[in-house]
């Protein structure tokens, strides 16, 4: 399979193989410690053939995986974050943004596209953990909102692939309000009877889980992903004891009734196609 290479030189020049994998021909699997051949791993959708560990997958690869004939239209690449609060902790926010843009060659922590899957129209947004922890500030909220809007104005199904530490601290209450903004747009999608599939990846926590990620008509997750509201460290400190094995993992959420499906990435295209075929037929 050939991965998408951007044709036009924009602000962000050509996309390299991104930081979803360590460099080199051989890769050690964090799941089972097996030494894997990079090419074989890539042919396997970056899922360990031995143990099923899901390595991070970039938005481009998700788009290629989902859309018919790897054809799709990208959107919202021209949106960039400002620093509305002039936020500075140990580093100014502007520097963190600069570094993240350089490291990822992306404008922000979510990418959006439209295309078709099995001929059905689909709007997709994919979050990216390597951009300031996939955190949601004004731009991420806006791109997500536009992805939802594209779905309900163009009669498309919606799929959001989440991977995020939650709302972005450096934009304060503005980040918090993105939770309400994205959720509010989802009500209009529901009014039109268009399906929304949420796919949660490792990790999905905080204000992202507590807004659009948990609001799918169908809530799906990759296997063994950490999904929750509060982070494990905070909970451990609150209750003063260790957390049970598997706590806040996909399988735990499925058992407690918050997921419909755990979907292996290798079956994602097929599963999404089947669901949308059933719902949009």
């Amino acid at each position: 399979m050939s991965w998408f290479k951007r044709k036009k030189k924009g602000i962000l020049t050509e996309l390299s193989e991104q930081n979803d994998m360590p460099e080199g021909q051989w890769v050690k699997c964090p799941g089972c410690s097996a030494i894997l051949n990079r090419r074989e791993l890539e042919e396997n959708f970056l899922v360990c053939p031995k143990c099923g560990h899901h390595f991070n997958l970039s938005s481009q690869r998700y788009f290629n995986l989902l859309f018919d004939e790897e054809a799709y239209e990208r959107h919202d690449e021209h949106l960039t974050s400002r620093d509305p609060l002039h936020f500075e902790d140990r580093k100014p926010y502007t520097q963190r943004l600069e570094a993240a843009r350089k490291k990822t060659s992306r404008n922000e922590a979510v990418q959006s596209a439209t295309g078709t899957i099995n001929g059905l129209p689909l709007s997709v947004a994919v979050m990216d953990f390597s951009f300031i922890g996939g955190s949601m500030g004004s731009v991420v909220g806006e791109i997500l909102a536009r992805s939802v809007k594209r779905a309900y104005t163009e009669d498309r199904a919606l799929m959001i692939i989440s991977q995020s530490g939650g709302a972005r601290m450096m934009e304060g209450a503005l980040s918090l309000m993105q939770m309400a903004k994205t959720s509010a747009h989802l009500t209009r999608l529901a009014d039109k009877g268009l399906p929304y599939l949420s796919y949660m990846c490792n990790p999905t926590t905080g204000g992202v889980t507590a807004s659009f990620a948990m609001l799918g008509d169908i809530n799906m997750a990759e296997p063994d992903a950490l999904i929750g509201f509060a982070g494990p460290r905070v909970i451990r400190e609150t209750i003063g004891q260790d957390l049970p094995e598997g706590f806040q993992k996909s399988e735990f959420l499925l058992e407690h009734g918050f997921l419909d499906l755990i979907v292996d990435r290798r079956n994602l295209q097929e599963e999404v196609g089947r669901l949308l075929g059933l719902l949009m037929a």
Partner: protein
Amino acid sequence: MPNNDSQYLLDFEKPLVELEQKLDEMRTLDANNLSIDLSEEIAALESRVKELERSIYQNLTRWQRVQIARHPLRPYTQDFIDALTEDFVELHGDRAYGDDRAIVGGFASFKGAQHGYADQTVLVLGHQKGRDTKERKFRRFGMPNPEGYRKALRLMKLAAKFNKPVITLLDTPGAFPGLEAEQRGQAEAIARNLFEMAQLPVPIVVVVIGEGASGGALGIGVGDRMLMLENAWYSVISPESCSSILWRSWDYKEEAARALKLTAPDLVEVGVVDEIVPEPTGGAHRDPEQLFTTTGQAIAQVLHDLQALSVPDLLDARLRNLDQMGIFDEAPANPSVAAPTS
């Protein structure tokens, strides 16, 4: 009626309260002793009190406002309900798991007539903190479990059913970060409320009365108008947690409070808050009666404005308002199309 109980004094309040005590003593002395006239000394002291008040409270740092918002004598949700409404009937339970005491809610008659409007039934709900150790624990410090958010949603849907407006009062350090909260879907409960509140077909007035931290606050905080008390704070995270994550130490809470721009004036500037409700000099706890009057007036006015709108207009305006949240840059669009690679 400033409460001078010294165990509740904030550092920066101390000199003021000491001066006020001196003034009280002098007034008592003056009243009990007909042979001495202290009126000049009293007047001088009164003006010194005023001056000191001004110098302290006109230059509050963001962290000092956070401290005022957490003042143990600050009015809580139940105090607002008692003052602003009559015939409050508290309703309990989420009909699925339990009743969360960190959120209280019910129907009541809002005393609009006092402010030049009619009295009317409202659904009022809010985070509830406790006054003493026992009640604080009972209320889980105002940190809800999923049942609290689900109870709130159940009540708001009742309000919609009976076509009554909703008033929500925010005062929480955050949703409870517990094991059981996660097990029972804290994230889902909050998310569901955001979704449902965005389309609830009755007016929703949100008032930040104390602390408003993260999704725990927002979970009952989506509405048509956002009011905020002058010394309340509202942000994506508490200054302490922000300090611990970004500075990797608990010691930078003052810096974090400054960086987060979490005060009412800050939030008006970025378009998150619509209106600041002024507090008595020194904070709500120094004159709760005055605060209740001002807050009641502000709510009555907002309800009146919102009730003039049709439901579709109300909901369109609510979405438009939420859609405008966010500040960012947008370069001219330059869509790139990926053709199938050959």
